[in-house]
């Protein structure tokens, strides 16, 4: 469970995130939807404690992420917007390294890594260096790395960005499985289909603020639009901007 209250972040005179509050519950997928520059990545970076909020509160389960960042990180599995693998290490070594940093050791780590590599269908590439991997393969390794310590909460920053159809389907499948396992999944996206296909709750962001939130149906009803895409455009004020 992730609870965010009145989060604010300023870069110089620009307010990147302003008064953002939402709750992402257990066993549910929450989508952070918004155009580029809406403040999604900044919000996530504050959640995984690499950025300090200027105001507000973040609770990961029952841990205050601002006061106790390391404990919060132990409860989080994170896929940042760059996969950033080590090209000279094999896929397995990349996963093992992060597992060790999470405090796993020995057979427990080996077993967990094996299981993940299996589940992500990576057996064939597990012991190859990641230098020549495709974008889809890199994303899978990064996902395995994020999940190695069996986190209760999973943050994914644009997980399907730039992936081909098969890899996108695989990632969606993983997200559904994480939900079925009762985890909290929070992911950001600017792709409508993505969000409508997966999310139980949608949090729509624009210009650093939350402009709407609720189930896909509720959002459609609220804006009086037939499709979610129209609802999105209406909510974020994109149309108005283009008109101006």
């Amino acid at each position, binding site marked *: 469970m992730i609870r965010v209250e009145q989060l604010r972040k300023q870069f110089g005179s620009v307010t990147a995130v302003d008064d953002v509050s939402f709750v992402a519950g257990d066993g549910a997928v929450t989508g952070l939807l918004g155009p580029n520059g809406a403040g999604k990545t900044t919000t996530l970076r504050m959640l995984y404690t690499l950025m300090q909020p200027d105001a507000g509160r973040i609770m990961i389960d029952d841990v205050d992420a601002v006061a106790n960042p*390391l*404990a919060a*990180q132990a409860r989080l599995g994170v896929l940042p917007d760059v996969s*950033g693998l080590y090209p*000279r290490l094999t896929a397995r070594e990349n996963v093992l390294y*992060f597992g060790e940093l*999470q405090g796993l050791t020995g057979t427990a780590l080996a077993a967990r890594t094996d299981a993940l590599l299996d589940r992500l269908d990576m057996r064939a590439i597990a012991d190859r260096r990641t230098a020549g991997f495709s974008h889809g393969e890199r994303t899978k390794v990064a996902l395995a790395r*994020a999940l190695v310590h069996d986190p209760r909460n999973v943050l994914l920053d644009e997980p399907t960005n730039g992936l081909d159809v098969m890899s996108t389907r695989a990632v969606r499948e993983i997200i559904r499985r994480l939900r079925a396992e009762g985890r909290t999944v929070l992911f950001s996206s600017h792709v409508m289909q993505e969000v409508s296909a997966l999310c139980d709750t949608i949090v729509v962001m624009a210009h650093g603020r939350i402009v709407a939130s609720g189930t896909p149906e509720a959002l459609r009803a609220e804006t009086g639009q037939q499709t979610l895409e129209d609802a999105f455009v209406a909510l974020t004020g994109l149309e108005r901007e283009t008109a101006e």
Partner: protein
Amino acid sequence: MSRWLQMLVVTRKELRDAFRDRRAIYSVLFGSLVGPVLVGVMFNAIADRQREIEDVTVPVVGMAHAPALVEWLRQQSGVTVVAGPADAEVAVRERREDVVVVIPEDYAKKFRASQPVELQVVSDGSRTASRPKVQRVRALLQRYNGEVAALRLIGRGVSPAVVTPIRIQDREVSSAQQRAAVILNFVPLFIVLASFTGGMQIATDSTAGERERGSLEPLLVNPAPRMAIAGGKWLASALSAALSVGITTTLCLLLLRAIPLQDLGIRFRLGPGQIWWLLVAVLPLCLLSTAIQTYLSTFARSFKEAQTYMGYLIMVPTLPGLLSSVYPITSQPWMYPVPILGQHLLAGDVLGGKAPSPLMFALAALSATATAAILVHLTTRMLTKEKIVFGR
């Protein structure tokens, strides 16, 4: 899991990662080998020069005019007499010969009449390389002069001592080992340099390289204290630097043992303990050199920028070395706790055969380690800055 264990996890990963990189291996090897190779080449050149002086070939013009002199020259050890070129001056000017002795036609006549004979020693004073050889030839002729004079005096019933009011005796005050240390000055320099070249690749690749690849952000998402991350990377580069220092030191000492230093007039004895003292002197520097490198590379915006800093940084350890080879520095106690300079002096002392003072070793090691700790702390703090983690 304790932060120390996490630090070791980071260290192990960085070492494994680096030694799969050919560039890293080459940079360690090149940094370790360049010193020993250059030392070998330098000593070879000195040995060649020395041999040239000892085994001297003297071209003589007009040998037939002074058979006794030529015969005496031939009997001197290491001397070979050959017929000189007809155009002695031209030959020397054109550098075909270093020195030519010209015996005049009236040698025998004047010698019999006990008149001074003018022997010409043709040489080019602007050529420093041939100077020892010229001096050797001149000394040989002086000695012959002295012997003949002594015989003549004895023949006339005069003791040769009468015409020798003073006799000069050279006494060198620096010990043979100290003189050796002047020539061996380069060895400490190369060992100190190895502590900088050996860890450079890991220091830059694991910090600036990590950021450029975009792997710093995922790395910092793990619940490892920044100190474990910064410390682990630093320790990996320090170990790599220590490896390089070990290789350089061992090879240099093996080389010095293999070279017949006695033949060069250097009484230089390497005890088995010296390699340990050398390592004790320089290894703490590995902690500092790599701490500086890790700090600068974390600060750098890119791998390239980091490498530029490394290029400037490598000039720092050469400064005391360069200065001391131009103005031989007399070591003062205050110099030992100065990082880099202290290690350089200690290494020079060990090779020069001076009794090592444990206090100075401890002071030098302590100051290097303390400075390193401060730098690692600053690197740790830098890793908490959003501007560093997410680029500028």
